[in-house]
């Protein structure tokens, strides 16, 4: 049933699996949508879509299959005010029964066209009539009316009509057409681990060998020995470029940032921000406001060389930003050029990788700064593959 819908969903980029589709068929067989299009909409959505970010895609596919293109839905403010009659609810309950018996089914387009015409002609409030748009009426338009096949204007009662929900495209803001899934990033970051038992955590695991030894030494009387579970000892330092040229990659960067912070398997994670290049200060917030910072030297003193460093940036500095001792147009240089600061980084930390969201493929001498930095640090493109390679690089011994 509805196999066209299935393929339209796929076309819109929704990963609907066959098993989910069969579940929907099963639900339909059980009559869970009560032969109502609106309930079918919710039923299909709850079974086929598993993230609010995908609701919008679903809405669009639903709209395409079950109706033509949406037309204008503009409803004037006045109209909504005329319709806003909560006190009519009680009266409505009484009348609902008799009215339901004379429901006339109309063609959707027909109703919509008439609605628009009527909207144009109407200039005052109408309630209870059978022609104008108003509450309690029997026309196909308005609020709390008895005609089930019509257009409901505003108001909140239980289900909204499926097409109105679709038209509202309420979940558009949730949508993010990201190529990379947060989860993939997290899985890549998982690679960064080094198990150690030398951490300061409670001893919660039974040390079998130790117990056997201790028991034997104890003349056969049982003596339990516990040990610390093996834990990841990796410490991570994330430095992110938050400069103007990085703005197109904001979503990507925040994905990476979130993935790093959700990865609770590191011993420690520190994040600082910089603008275009690293100088004497690193910012605590992505806004990079002067004052909200730490000194880079402080970082050298306090974060020892065991920290594995990931620098994220587009490495598109102007030559003077990299080579001039006064090249930082936004804050202090600290007497050294950007390049010198980067060299200090390299000297201090054993493991550094650079992730670049817009790295040129292969050798690109025209990108001067990028080429220079590639000479200092291994650089990878900020993709799942690139991140995986970078993590491998951080783990292997030199």
């Amino acid at each position, binding site marked *: 049933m509805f196999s066209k819908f299935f393929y339209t969903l796929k076309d819109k980029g929704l990963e609907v699996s066959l098993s989910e589709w069969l579940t929907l068929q*099963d639900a339909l067989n059980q009559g*869970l949508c009560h032969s109502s299009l609106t309930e079918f909409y919710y039923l299909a959505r709850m079974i086929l879509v598993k993230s609010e970010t995908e609701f919008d895609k679903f809405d669009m596919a639903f709209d395409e299959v079950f109706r033509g293109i949406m037309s204008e839905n503009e409803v004037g403010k006045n109209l909504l005010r005329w319709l806003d009659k909560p006190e009519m609810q009680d009266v409505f309950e009484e009348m609902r029964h008799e009215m339901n018996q004379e429901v006339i089914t109309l063609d959707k387009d027909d109703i919509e066209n008439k609605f628009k015409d009527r909207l144009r002609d109407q200039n005052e409030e109408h309630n209870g009539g059978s022609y104008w748009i108003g509450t309690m009426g029997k026309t196909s338009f308005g609020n709390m009316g008895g005609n089930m096949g019509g257009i409901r204007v505003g108001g909140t009662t239980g289900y909204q009509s499926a097409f109105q929900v679709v038209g509202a495209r309420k979940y558009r803001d949730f949508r993010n057409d990201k190529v990379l899934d947060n989860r993939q990033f997290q899985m890549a970051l998982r690679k960064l681990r080094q198990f150690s038992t030398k951490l300061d955590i409670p001893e919660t695991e039974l040390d079998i060998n130790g117990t056997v030894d201790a028991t034997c030494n104890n003349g056969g009387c049982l003596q339990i020995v516990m040990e610390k579970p093996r834990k990841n000892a990796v410490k991570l330092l994330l430095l992110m470029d938050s400069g103007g040229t990085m703005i197109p990659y904001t979503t990507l960067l925040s994905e990476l940032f979130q993935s790093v912070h*959700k990865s609770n398997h590191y011993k420690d994670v520190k994040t600082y921000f910089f603008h275009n290049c690293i100088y004497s200060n690193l910012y605590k917030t992505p806004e990079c406001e002067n004052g909200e910072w730490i000194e880079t030297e402080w970082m050298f003193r306090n974060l020892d060389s065991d920290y594995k460093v990931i620098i994220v940036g587009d490495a598109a500095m102007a030559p003077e930003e990299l080579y001039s001792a006064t090249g930082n147009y936004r804050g202090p240089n600290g007497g050294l050029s950007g390049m010198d600061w980067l060299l200090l980084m390299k000297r201090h930390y054993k493991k550094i990788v650079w992730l670049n969201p817009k790295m040129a493929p292969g050798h690109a001498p025209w990108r001067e700064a990028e080429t220079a930095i590639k000479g200092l640090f291994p650089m990878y493109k900020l993709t799942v593959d690139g991140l995986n390679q970078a993590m491998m690089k951080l783990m292997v011994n030199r």
Partner: protein
Amino acid sequence: MADTKFSSTADYVASEQLLASVNVAIALQKPLLVKGEPGTGKTMLAQAVAASLGKKLIIWNIKSTTKAQDGLYMYDTIQRLYDGQFGEEGVDDIAHYIKLGKLGEAFEADEQVILLIDEIDKADLEFPNDLLWELDQMEFYIHETKRTVKAKHRPIVIITSNAEKELPDAFLRRCIFHYIDFPDQALMEEIVRTHYPDVEDKLLKDAMEVFYWIRSMKDIRKKPSTSELIDWINALQIGGIPTDRLRQELPFIGVVVKKDEDLETVKGRTD
């Protein structure tokens, strides 16, 4: 299955869509995954379902250290070793030292129960995958005793997530999904009234106005949620604060706004 139909209860107001989701999940015998902003009543939902259907609720709270195995069973080796020393009775029977976890408990129950797996996203990334078979087949195998624990009555499984982590696709495919929208003013009023039926109209109106006003601020770090509004209204009622200067003075605002930065933002805009 006609008797197992969930409806709003006296102290839980669910939207039509949520009711439908719960009932579909029950009918299709699939776990219901509920996602939404913190404080929109995800955990309360399971309690309401249990109350509405008159079934027992088993809650499995997930923490960052929780492993899938914890929910199935635990083999208390150390207790057995100690008991073995002194030749305690029953030491030769491993079954004595097998303790069922929450999932095991739900399977072994003599009647259908509601199993709430709360905040599944708190756990390790692999956690949901480790439960696929158990939730699909509703059974698991205890290696130590070579016994298969099979659900006597398929429990109704409700899983909540705060979307801190993405869940694996294989897991998602098996669930019915519902996203709890933040309630609009009308629904919110209804929700507050189920908690405090005799709340003054004026107080409720003014408090909600301030609440939605705070939520509408773009630069607020943590948006206040339903449960915070409910607490605030309670505090205002107990405190007997005159409502006329609610917006200017913001009494007990700490109940609604929890972060220092946010407090300053809100206070800075009261004038």
